């Protein structure tokens, strides 16, 4: 909560102002029953009509003050909670965007998304409700208690007895209820998963005629959910009747004890009536607090999840500039890295590329191809070894400067619901010429055939494009700003061979000065590279040109023969 409280602190001035207004408004409101009894006890016996209207008018005035005095702070409260939420969300999103990749891996993307959406929403609700009801309810309890004390301190004792009992019940039920609701949430997760699976796997399920089976499976999860929901609900359902019962028994006790005191001449029946009114008021406020309790505990657990992210340290520090003169553009020296720091994902990787050269990387799934790229972009820092670009160690380059050198396409890269232009431009404010040129080089001619051309809209994740179209769009994005280094991570797998070849031809003709790294499954995509690296289980098992490897590297020969059939001679 500490961190979230920091967002509340700047608003404390406003919040205390609000509190002051609300406090006075509620005190005014508390006066109303007292004024009624004053009219009846003191004014009416005099028979003075003017006084009646005077006091009556005063009551209406008080009611109006209470209205205004509650509306203004409520408005202010929604405004404060809006401002707090806005800046909290902004900071959280900024932090998320700046998390290092290993931190993102640790939190996992779905969890980050739910922290940014559901959790900030819960915190918002908490801040809002606490301000709105959290002030009124305690004032009512406190003010009511003080007034009852002046009425009859002994009867107040009865009230004091019920309070801890009610507190205990609130505590007991919510401490039992919250785990039950957590369980409900868990079952809901599995229901959601089932729906998700069925939507993504609809073709397979229909093809195998398993709809019936899936229905049964869902039915089971659904029934389990029913059972858990019912159990949690039953527990929560007891809150109100039990609290009502205690309240009403307290009321009865007040009457009985009051009777004894009246009999002893210590108090008057009129006071008992007033006492009962205030008693009801206080206990209603307590109920309100109990309802708030659930929301606050939800909000606190969400706040904790948000703080976990905000408190994550900046772990990609920029070191001092470390430069050696080098003839190479990109250089890896004995680089090793492991994601979980147990088993090495790549080991002892060394290579060097001159400006304008092309490196092809090939190897089975899981051999470490993408890891090399992640290290070059400094998503992760290597465990040992060094990586240099134009002689500068990459740990010493400002991230922004480092990444502006690259144009990258990842596997399953990111397209969003906006125009094609926006997807290629990617917020870099490039010119139309740059975009069109990039699209042409990327063989993305389909854009020009679209009715609205570059302004055509994509759906979320580009789902209204085919796999090949998506990849060409992504390639265009990588090319558009004419970077000095291009990285393609298996980005042409959905292109047919002809388009792929046309693209590579265009690339070599137009961007001969650009250093390029191509990761691929297809041998034809990398055959023409200046250097080819064959990876297996994180180690280099072959490095050289196509003709060197075809004669010297067994694995490479294998891949070639399988993919090219008998045409090795060509």
């Amino acid at each position, binding site marked *: 909560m500490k961190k979230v409280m920091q967002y509340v602190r700047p608003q404390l001035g406003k919040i205390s102002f609000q509190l002051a207004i609300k406090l006075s408004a509620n005190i005014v409101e508390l006066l109303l029953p007292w004024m009624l009894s004053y009219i009846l006890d003191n004014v009416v016996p005099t028979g003075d009509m003017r006084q009646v209207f005077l006091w009556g008018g005063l009551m209406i005035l008080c009611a109006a003050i209470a209205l205004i005095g509650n509306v203004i702070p*409520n408005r202010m409260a*929604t405004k404060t909670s809006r401002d707090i939420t806005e800046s909290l969300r902004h900071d959280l999103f900024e932090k998320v965007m700046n998390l290092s990749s290993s931190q993102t891996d640790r939190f996992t993307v779905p969890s980050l998304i739910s922290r940014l959406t559901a959790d900030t929403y819960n915190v918002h609700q908490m801040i809002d409700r606490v301000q709105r009801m959290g002030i009124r309810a305690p004032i009512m309890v406190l003010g009511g208690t003080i007034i009852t004390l002046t009425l009859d301190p002994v009867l107040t004792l009865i009230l004091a007895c019920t309070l801890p009992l009610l507190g205990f019940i609130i505590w007991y039920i919510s401490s039992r209820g919250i785990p039950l609701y957590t369980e409900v949430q868990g079952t*809901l997760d599995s229901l959601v998963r089932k729906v998700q699976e069925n939507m993504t796997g609809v073709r397979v399920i229909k093809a195998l005629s398993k709809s019936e089976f899936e229905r049964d499976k869902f039915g089971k999860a659904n029934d389990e959910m029913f059972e858990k929901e019912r159990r949690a609900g039953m527990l929560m359902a007891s809150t109100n009747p039990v609290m009502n019962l205690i309240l009403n028994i307290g009321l*009865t006790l007040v009457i*009985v004890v009051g009777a*004894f005191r009246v*009999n002893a001449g210590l108090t008057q029946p009129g006071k008992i009536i007033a006492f009962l009114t205030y008693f009801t008021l206080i206990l209603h406020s307590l109920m309100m607090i109990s309802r708030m309790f659930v929301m606050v505990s939800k909000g606190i657990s969400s706040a904790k999840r948000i703080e976990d992210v905000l408190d994550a340290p900046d772990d990609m520090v920029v070191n001092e500039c470390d430069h050696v003169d080098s003839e190479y553009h990109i250089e890896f020296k004995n680089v090793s890295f492991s994601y979980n720091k147990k088993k090495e994902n790549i080991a002892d990787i060394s290579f060097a590329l001159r400006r304008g050269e092309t490196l092809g990387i090939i190897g089975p799934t899981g051999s470490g191809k993408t890891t090399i790229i992640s290290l070059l972009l400094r998503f992760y820092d290597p465990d040992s070894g060094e990586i240099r670009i134009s002689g500068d160690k990459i740990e010493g380059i400002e991230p922004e400067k480092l990444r502006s050198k690259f144009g990258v396409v990842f596997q399953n890269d990111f397209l969003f619901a906006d125009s094609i232009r926006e997807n290629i431009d990617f917020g870099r404010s490039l010119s139309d010429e740059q975009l069109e040129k990039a699209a042409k080089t990327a063989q993305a001619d389909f854009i020009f055939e679209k009715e609205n051309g570059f302004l055509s809209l994509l759906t979320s*994740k580009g789902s209204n494009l085919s796999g090949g179209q998506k990849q060409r769009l992504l390639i265009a994005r990588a090319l558009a700003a004419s970077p000095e280094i291009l990285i393609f991570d298996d980005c042409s797998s959905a292109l047919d061979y002809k388009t792929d070849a046309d693209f590579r031809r265009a690339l070599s003709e137009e961007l001969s000065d650009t250093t390029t790294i191509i990761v691929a499954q297809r041998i034809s995509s990398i055959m023409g590279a200046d250097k080819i690296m064959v990876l297996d289980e994180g180690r280099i098992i072959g490095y050289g040109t196509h003709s060197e490897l075809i004669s010297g590297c067994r694995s490479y020969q294998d891949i070639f023969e399988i993919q*090219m059939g008998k045409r090795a001679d060509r």
Partner: protein
Amino acid sequence: MNEHKQPPMPGGFGAAGSGKFEKPVAKTSEILRRLWKYLCKFKWQLILALLLCVASNVLALVGPKLSGFAIDAIKPGKGQVNFPSVFHYAILMIIFYVASSILGYLLSALMIKLSCRVVNRMRRDAFDKLTTLPVGFFDKHQTGDIISVISYDIDTINTSLANDLPQMLTSVITVVVSFVMMLTISVKLMLVFVLTIPMTIVYTRYRSKKVRPLYRRRSEKLGAMNGFAEETIGGQKTAKAYSREKVFIGRFDRKNKEAVDANYEADCFASITGPMVMFLSNLSLALISILGAILFMAGSITLGNISSFVLYSRKFSGPINEFANIISELQSALAAAERVLRLLDEKPEPEDVPDAVELRDVKGNVELRNVTFGYDPEKPIIKDLSLSAPEGAVIAIVGPTGAGKTTIVNLLMRFYDIDSGTITIDGLDIRNVTRNSLRLAYTMVLQDTWLFHGTIFENISYGKDGATLEDVMNAAKIAKIHNYIMSLPDGYDTLLSDDGINISKGQKQLLTLARAILLDSRILILDEATSNVDTQTERRIQNAMLQLMKGRTCFVIAHRLSTIQNADSILVVSNGSIVEQGTHSELLSKGGFYSELYYAQFESY
């Protein structure tokens, strides 16, 4: 193969899909009528709930009256109290309150059980509906949207049924009883309400009219922001690689601002309600004081009358306050119900024709004649396509991306119905056979591997009921994934979950291949089935593939031309129609489109 599937959605970022089920409001009465259908299955329980509700509330409302009698028995002055009477009424009060609480608990318990049942049924209906919908539905709708219907929307209905409905009943009963009580106390004092009740009603109506669009806007904007966050965090690496964090933070800020502002507007309005209703109640109090004082002076009522009247008038305006809140809750429940009902109203796959036959003893002669089809009938993707695949033939389909290859699969399996032409299996028009039997005639291995949350054993045996562990192991051995599975700590019982063990795309494809190997249908569809398997593994499973294909009619879609060189017939598809057809060597010697595609893979740029 997604192109033309859906028109570009209006609105920018994230907004895509969030508005799917937010079409104009259906008539409230219509929604209520259909919700009633769910409820009326529990008619008797509802009646019981109603009785419980009335009983518990009336018992509770008798309390004040009893307390009044008890207080009457407390005569002012030392030693004047009539103790037997006080105790009598005190005991009665406790009995009434205990009874009322017990009934109140029973009522809540009943309603919770009932609402859980209703929701359970609703969820099941929604899911059952999903399983009957055509594939086209899933191509058009976002998973997240449907999930929010099944989880969030149905949950809202649940809360509403369990809490709001009894609350509303309670309110109604309290209002009615208080009203009657007040009438019995003093008709003249009721004049006060001539002023305040219309004010309350006017305010409540105005409010609900005003608040509904504000709440709708609020969920819309929040949805848009959530959508944007989801999209962008998913692409965090890319944003980093291009150093575009700031740009996206700026865009997020805009979405965020819109969301909190919409929220502010809705809440602002809502935050007036509480004080407003309190005001009306206080106003009544003031007016009762004035009028009461006048009447008292005129001698037409007693002091005790005024005090009970005040008590009941408090009870009277309390529920009206609740009412205003409940109505806004109910409105959100209605909006949720609308979305659920809309899902339930989606058109299912059309029924099989009345005299549809079961496809039995399939041989595997597949024939397409003059088939035309488009996801949008205006824009046909397949034009006048004819091809014949005799029993046991291997038909390869190649062509550039977006040429309609996957569409052909959609049509063969009848995921979509063709616009014109015919498709036959063993001479039977597929429209005249049952969908189940048609689909079971095929075994399909797709590029997009689909595995579900379950053990490896369950995943492999998915298509074949009663498969033994031995069967599954054999299939896995053929697919060359057995050794990997055995290397896992739990072997075939390993749970495949989203975050659990890390299996690569290639391994996933091998698992789905093993699933296919277990099946024994006569026709096989391989749609880029091994595109993510690395070359060495592909070679290792080549035998498995050959074994799988042996004796079956096969449709093979592949980019890697090496995998299809041995096909009996290769169809080259371009722009929805077959441009070339023949064996590998025939097509190569022809020097057409195919040979261009083929030689492209050897070009080494």
